């Protein structure tokens, strides 16, 4: 509890935090709002995008792209502690190294919860205004996608946390995080068989928020072997635990 209180003190008064969060909210609202005018096979998606219950699936897929921003925020928060030497001061003053890492893990949980609540509010807002069906059953029909999104956001941020503790410099850590999630792992995916690469971390995290309309695409081409969201939760939790443990190990074994 004490750990969380201290983290809040640091984060809530940090202008950079508010700038990144404002960017997160603003860009996501814009994308959600304008995605209804996207053209798919010559047809505008239209307001049907906001129909319950599939809205939850579509919105969590949109939010998926913004996990990168949350990851960058986590990297900034952690590498700051290295450049200000405040991590070392906290270990001097009365904290174990494990607690120092756990504090940041709690921050990722908090950010993921914030992102999920934001998505819930956006979903209810757009859904109640535009959805044809606003019965309780429809509204809460596929709301479990929000929980998949939560796990995914935690996963992305834990990967970012790992790179931040590994590299300790914000610029390089951000590059490594983006390079791994968007270039290196996707290249590996092409090289190896689908039956194996579906268990790789970024693929697993991605499977939590499947592309809307994937079933239609699958009908036209050969179906992908990606895990269903419900099935991806277990390996995702495994990777999260692994990344947290690796971060703890890194911080415990090195000089600060």
């Amino acid at each position: 509890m004490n750990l969380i209180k201290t983290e809040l003190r640091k984060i809530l008064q940090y202008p950079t935090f508010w700038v990144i969060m404002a960017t997160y909210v603003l860009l996501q609202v814009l994308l959600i709002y304008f995605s209804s005018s996207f053209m798919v096979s010559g047809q505008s998606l239209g307001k049907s995008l906001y129909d319950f219950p599939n809205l939850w699936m579509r919105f969590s897929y949109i939010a998926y792209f913004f996990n990168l921003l949350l990851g960058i925020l986590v990297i900034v928060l952690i590498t700051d502690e290295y450049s200000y030497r405040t991590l070392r001061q906290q270990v001097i003053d009365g904290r174990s190294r494990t607690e120092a890492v756990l504090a940041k893990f709690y921050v990722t949980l908090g950010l993921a919860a914030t992102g999920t609540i934001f998505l819930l509010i956006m979903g209810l807002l757009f859904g109640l205004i535009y959805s044809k069906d606003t019965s309780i059953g429809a509204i809460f029909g596929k709301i479990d996608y929000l929980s998949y999104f939560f796990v995914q956001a935690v996963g992305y941020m834990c990967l970012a946390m790992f790179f931040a503790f590994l590299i300790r410099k914000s610029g390089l850590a951000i590059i490594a995080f983006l390079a791994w999630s968007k270039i290196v792992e996707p290249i590996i995916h092409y090289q190896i068989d689908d039956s194996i690469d579906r268990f790789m971390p970024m693929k697993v995290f991605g499977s939590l928020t499947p592309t809307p309309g994937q079933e239609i695409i699958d009908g036209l081409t050969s179906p992908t072997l990606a895990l269903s969201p419900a099935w991806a939760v277990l390996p995702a939790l495994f990777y999260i635990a692994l990344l947290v443990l690796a971060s703890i190990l890194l911080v415990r074994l090195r000089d600060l």
Partner: protein
Amino acid sequence: METVLYLDELSKKFGSLQAVDRLTLQVEAGSIYGLLGPNGSGKTTTLGMVLDVIRPSGGSYLWFGRSISNETKQRVGALLETPNFYPYLTAKANLQVVADTKQADHRHINKMLDMVGLGTRSHTTFKGFSLGMKQRLALAAAMLNDPEVLVLDEPTNGLDPQGIAEVRDLITRIAAQGKTILLASHLLDEVEKVCTHVAVLQSGKLKANGPVGDILSAQDQLLISAEELAPVLQLLERLPYVVRFAQDKNTISLTLSEGYTSTDLNRDMFAQGIVLSQLLVRRKSLEAQFLEITQK
């Protein structure tokens, strides 16, 4: 007396560099213990190891007779190298973060800010502080929960004369309350003025340690000369209180054992019919003593 900190063969290697080499020493409660050595002699590395931020390559250390834990950390206030704070937070908010970590009473914050003369600047962000103010804030943070031990690494580094005087005054005031202080410094006169005990480090090795009086205030040197040097040399051989002597052209330099002065020497010379043409007492400078210790 209770041992506050005990180092047993503590070592640290950075690659091929042996930064600290099997360092063994103990700091007793109530002492002001100076860790003296030139830059790069391993002072900060030693403090870093006992403060849990640098992992030792060998050896061990004990705080209050037990291994380091959050509980022992909270009994020690420490300032290692630079003042480490969040630049965007105010002085007060920074101390709140420290108070959380140390589980200190938040009501002490204003009192501490007043003590280091920052009471009126508590709402200024850390990045707007001068170096002296930053250093004072770090001292306030170190003393926040009234620790039994203070560890200070070059506390007057980079300060102007007034700042140096203030910090030294603060240290002596804290020490007067019976607290133990471990102070690393490369400034001889600082250690001599402030400390009760000293350990001299060079290239990571312990060169000497003990009470400051024994280590830094070595015997004075005498320079004598006479018309005829031969009988003087003969007599010096026989005088029991002459520790060593050496002839240098027309003068002889010598050191006397403790408790004897130039008066004793002059009287004995005169008693033997030797009249000295010169008798000079030369106090060894701290720098000379330090070089002597480190070159042993």
